[in-house]
C-alpha cells in the first residue's frame, strides 16, 4: 500500500511545486462569485422586490376604462397609479422619466380589457418594469376573473399568500452547490489523463517500471492522488458555504457521492490515457466522453446534480439515498475493472 502512497505523494508534490493548482481553486472561486453575480444580478432584474424593497413603480394609467385598474394597483405597496386624461399627457411624463410605465386600458365589446403597456426601452430598468407590469396585470386578471366568475365553469385556485423569499435561495441549492461540487471532479479527471499521458510522452514510464512497482501500483497511486483532490475541494466548499450561512443538510452523503463520481471520472480519464497515450487524443476523447456520460445521467430517474441539490436542501427521498449507493457501486466496479485490465496487460511498451 505504501508504494502506492509514494506514487500518489509524488504526483501531489509535483502539483504543489508547480503551484498552478492555485489556478484551479481560483477558477472555482471565480465561478462561484460569478454565478452569484449572475444570480443576484438577474434575480434583481427579474424580481426587484427581492433586492430593493423600497422601489415603487409608478404606473401612468389612462384610457377609457383606466379607473378599473387603479384600485388593483393601489392595493399593493410597491405600486402607485397616476391617472391621466389623455394618453399624450401620460406619454409625455413617461418620456420625461416621471413615471415608469404607461398602461392604457380600453374594453372591447365582449367586456375583455385590452391593455397597451409601454415600458422603457434599452436600459437596466426595462426588465424590472416589465416584470412589475406583468405582476400588476396578473393581479388585474385575477380581479377580472373574480368579477366574471359567473361565466366560468371552473374556479381558479386561490393563490397562496405572498412570501418575501429570495429566489437566490433556490439557486444556491440547485445550481451553485452542484456546480461547486462537480467542477473539481472534472478537473481531477482531466489531470489524471495528463498524469498518465505525460509518463508515456516523456518516456519516464520506463524509469517507473524498473522500480519494484507493479503496473497496478503505478495506476493506483496516480488515481489516488487525483481522486482525492475532488472530495477535498468539495468538502472545503461545503464548509465555506455553511460558514457563510448556507445550511447544508447532508454533507457526509454529498461527499460520498462526490467521492464516487470522482472515482468514476478519474477511472475514465486513466482508462482513456492508458488506451490512447497521446495527450491530444486522450484529452479530447475524455472531455467528450465525460460530456456524454454526464448528460446521460439526466436520463436516470435522478441526475447527480439533482441528487446533490436534494441532499443539500434537506429533502432527499429514499431514491436519492439509493442513487448514491448506485453511483458508488458503479464507480467501484469501473475502478476494479480497470485494475484488472492493467494487471493483466501491464502498461504496454
Amino acid at each position, binding site marked *: 500500500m505504501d508504494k502506492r502512497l509514494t506514487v500518489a505523494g509524488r504526483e501531489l508534490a*509535483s502539483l504543489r511545486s508547480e503551484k*498552478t493548482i492555485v*489556478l484551479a481553486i*481560483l*477558477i472555482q472561486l471565480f465561478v462561484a462569485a460569478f454565478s452569484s453575480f449572475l444570480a443576484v444580478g*438577474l434575480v434583481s*432584474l427579474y424580481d426587484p422586490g427581492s433586492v430593493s424593497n423600497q422601489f415603487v413603480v409608478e404606473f401612468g394609467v389612462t384610457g377609457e376604462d383606466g379607473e378599473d385598474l387603479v384600485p388593483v394597483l393601489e392595493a399593493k405597496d410597491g405600486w402607485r397609479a397616476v391617472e391621466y386624461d389623455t*394618453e*399624450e399627457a401620460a*406619454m*409625455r411624463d413617461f*418620456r420625461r*422619466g416621471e413615471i415608469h410605465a404607461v398602461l392604457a386600458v380600453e374594453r*372591447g*365589446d*365582449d367586456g*375583455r380589457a*385590452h391593455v*397597451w*403597456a409601454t415600458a*422603457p*426601452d434599452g436600459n*437596466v430598468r*426595462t*426588465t424590472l418594469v*416589465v416584470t412589475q407590469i406583468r405582476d400588476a396585470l396578473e393581479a388585474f386578471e385575477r380581479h377580472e*376573473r373574480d368579477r366574471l366568475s359567473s361565466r*366560468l*365553469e371552473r374556479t*381558479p*385556485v386561490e*393563490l*397562496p399568500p*405572498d*412570501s418575501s*423569499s429570495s429566489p437566490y*435561495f*433556490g439557486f444556491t*441549492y*440547485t445550481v451553485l452547490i452542484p456546480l461547486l461540487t462537480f467542477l473539481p471532479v472534472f478537473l481531477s479527471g482531466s*489531470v489524471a*489523463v*495528463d498524469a498518465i499521458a*505525460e509518463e508515456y*510522452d*516523456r*518516456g519516464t514510464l520506463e524509469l517507473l517500471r524498473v522500480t519494484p512497482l507493479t503496473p497496478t501500483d503505478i495506476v493506483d497511486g496516480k488515481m489516488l492522488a487525483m481522486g482525492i483532490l475532488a472530495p477535498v475541494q468539495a468538502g472545503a466548499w461545503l464548509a465555506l458555504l455553511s460558514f457563510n450561512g448556507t445550511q447544508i443538510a447532508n454533507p457526509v452523503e454529498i461527499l460520498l457521492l462526490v467521492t464516487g463520481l470522482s472515482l468514476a471520472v478519474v477511472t475514465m480519464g486513466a482508462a482513456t490515457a492508458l488506451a490512447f497515450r*497521446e*495527450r*491530444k*487524443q486522450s*484529452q479530447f*476523447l475524455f472531455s*467528450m466522453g465525460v460530456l*456524454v456520460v454526464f448528460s446521460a445521467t*439526466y436520463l436516470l430517474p435522478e441526475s447527480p446534480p439533482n441528487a446533490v*441539490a*436534494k441532499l443539500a*436542501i*434537506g429533502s432527499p427521498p429514499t431514491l436519492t439515498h439509493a442513487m448514491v449507493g448506485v453511483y458508488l457501486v458503479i464507480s467501484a466496479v469501473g475502478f476494479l475493472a480497470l485494475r484488472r485490465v492493467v494487471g493483466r496487460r501491464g502498461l504496454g511498451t
Partner: protein
Amino acid sequence: MKARKTLRIARWEVSKNAGQFDRRTVAVAAAVLLLVAVLTPLVASQGITLDDGIYRVGVAEDSPYYDPVAEDPTFVAVSPETENADVWIRSDGIRATDTQKGRAALAELRTTVESYNDRLMAAEADGSAAFPVEVSVEYVEQDRVGGGGASAPATRTPDEGEVGLGGSDGSGGDGSPGDESGTDASGDNSGTGDGDGQVGAPSVGSQGSLFGGGQQGTPSDVAPPFPFESLVLAFAFVLPMNFVIQAYASTILDERINDRGELLLVSPVSRGDIIAGKTLPYLLGMVAIASVTAVGIAVLTPAADGAVSIATTAGTSVLAVIPIALLFLASSFVGAMFARSFKELTFVTVTLSVFLTSYAFVPAIFTNVHPVASISPLTLVVRALRGTAVTLGEYAFSTGPLYLSSAVLFALGAGVYREEDMFTQRSVPLKFLDALNGQISGARSVAKLSALSIPFVFVGELLAVALLFALPVELSMPILLIAIAFVEEVAKSVHVYAGFAHARFARSLRSVGILGFLSGLGFFLGEKAVAVAQLVGLPDLELGRAAFGTVTGLGVETSPLVLAGLLFAPLALHAVTATTTAYGASRDRRWYAITLVWATLVHAAYNLTVVSHLG
C-alpha cells in the same frame, strides 16, 4: 513571413495529426460523437430540471391545491399530517415553516398555482371571461432620467401607431388571442400564436425591443426582454472552441517536450512562419465548425425567409465569432508556451476557457438591456440571429479589442518561441517576465507596452466589477477602486520590472524617471484612445463611468478649463505612480511590491477624489 513556408508547416501539422489518428481513435471518436448526437435530443426532450423535488408540500388529495402541487415536479406532495414538510395546506389555511426554505417553497407554490390557473382557464369555453385581460407591450425610449443632457428631445411627440392601435376585439376562442393589432411586425412575436406558450423550437426572434417590436398576449405571456434562447444558440459557437484549444495547446507544448521543436527552429523558416503554420489549421477548423453551426442555426431558426438572409445571418455570426476564436488560440498559445507540464497546461487551459467563455457570454445576456452588452461579439451573434442589422461601427467596437488582444498575446508568445525559453523549465510568472522582456527593445517600447496593456486592463476591471457585484455597495466601492487602481498600476509597471530584472535598463534614478514617465504616457495615450472609441461606440454607457470614466474625464460636464485640467491630471497621475513603481522595480522584488502597494493607494485616493467631487 512567407506564405509558402507557412502553408507547408500547416500541412505538416495536419498530416501529423491525421497520422496519429489511427483507426481505433477515429472509431472511438465517431462513437462518442454519435452518442452526443443521439443523447442531445433525448436529454433536451426531457428537459434539464435542476429543482426536481426540492420542496415538500403537505396537501390532502381532495384539496384544490393537490393538482397544482402534483403537476409541478419541483414539489413532492406528502400527507398534510406529516411533520416532515416545508408547506402545509390544510382547511384552516396555508402554513410554511419559518425557515428560508419554507418561505422559498411558499413563493414557488404561488407561481405554480398561477400557471396552473392559466392552464385551467385555457379549457374554459368563454374565452373572454377566462382571459379577461389582453396585453400588448411596447418599448419606448425614455429621455435621460435626472437631467444631464439637454431636454430638447422631450418635445418629441409619441410616434404614430403607438397609441390606439385598436381593431383587436372579438377574437374569442380559448387561450391567448393571437391577433396582430398591427404595430410593427418586426421581431416575430413568439408569445402569441401557439396556444399557451413557447414550447417547441427555440424561438429566437422574440421580443425584439431594440427596434420597438411589441408583444401581445395574456398578462402571464409578458416576459422581460431576455434573449435566453438566442444565448443558448450563441453558446453553441463557443463550446467547440474549448475542445479545439485543448488540441492546439497540446501541439504547442509537444514541441517543447524533449527538444522536439529544435528541428523546426534550426530550419530556414522564421518563428512567425512556424507559429502561423501551426495555428492556421486550428483557426480554419474553428471557422469551419463555426460556419457549420451558423448555417445550421440560421436554417433552423430563420430570422427572415430566403436564402440571402440566411447567408447574411450565418456570415455575420461567423465574422463575429472569428475574433473570439483568435483570442482563444492566442491565449492558449501563450499558456502552452508558459506551461511546464501537461497538468499545468490543463489548469491553464481550463482557466482560460472559463474566463474567455464568461467574457464572451456574460455581457451578451444584457443584449437589449444595457449597452455594456456590445463589448462582447456574441451580442452581434444574438442580434444577427434576430434579424437585426449589425453596422460596421458596432462590429469594430465589439471585436476590435479582441483582435488587438490576440495580436498582443501572439506577439508575447512569439517572443519566447526560441531555444533558450522553449526548452527550459521555469515557473509561469518567470516565463511571463521573460516574454515581456522579449518585447522590450528600448525605453520607448515601454510606452508601447503600457498602451497595449489597455485591453487587458479593461478585461481585468470588468471582471473585478463582476466579482464585487455581490457585495454590499459600501464595501464593494472602496474595494473596487483599489482593485482598479491595482490592475492599472500592475499594467504600467510589470514590464518595467521585467526590463530591470533582465538588466535591460541601467538601475539609475535617471532611467527610473524616464521609464516611469514613458510608461505613464503610454498608458495615458492608450486610455485616451479607448475613451474616444467609447465616445463613438457607446455614447451612453453608464456602468463604465464609475469604473473607467473617472480617469478619462468623460461624461463630466464642467468648464473647459477644468476639463483641460481633467484631461492632463490623469497623465500626471500615471507618470507619478509609474515612476514610483519603476523606482521599486529598479531595486528588487520586495521594493517593487512595496512601491506597487503605495502607487495603488495613491491612485485609488485620486480616483476616490474624482468620483466624490465630480460623480
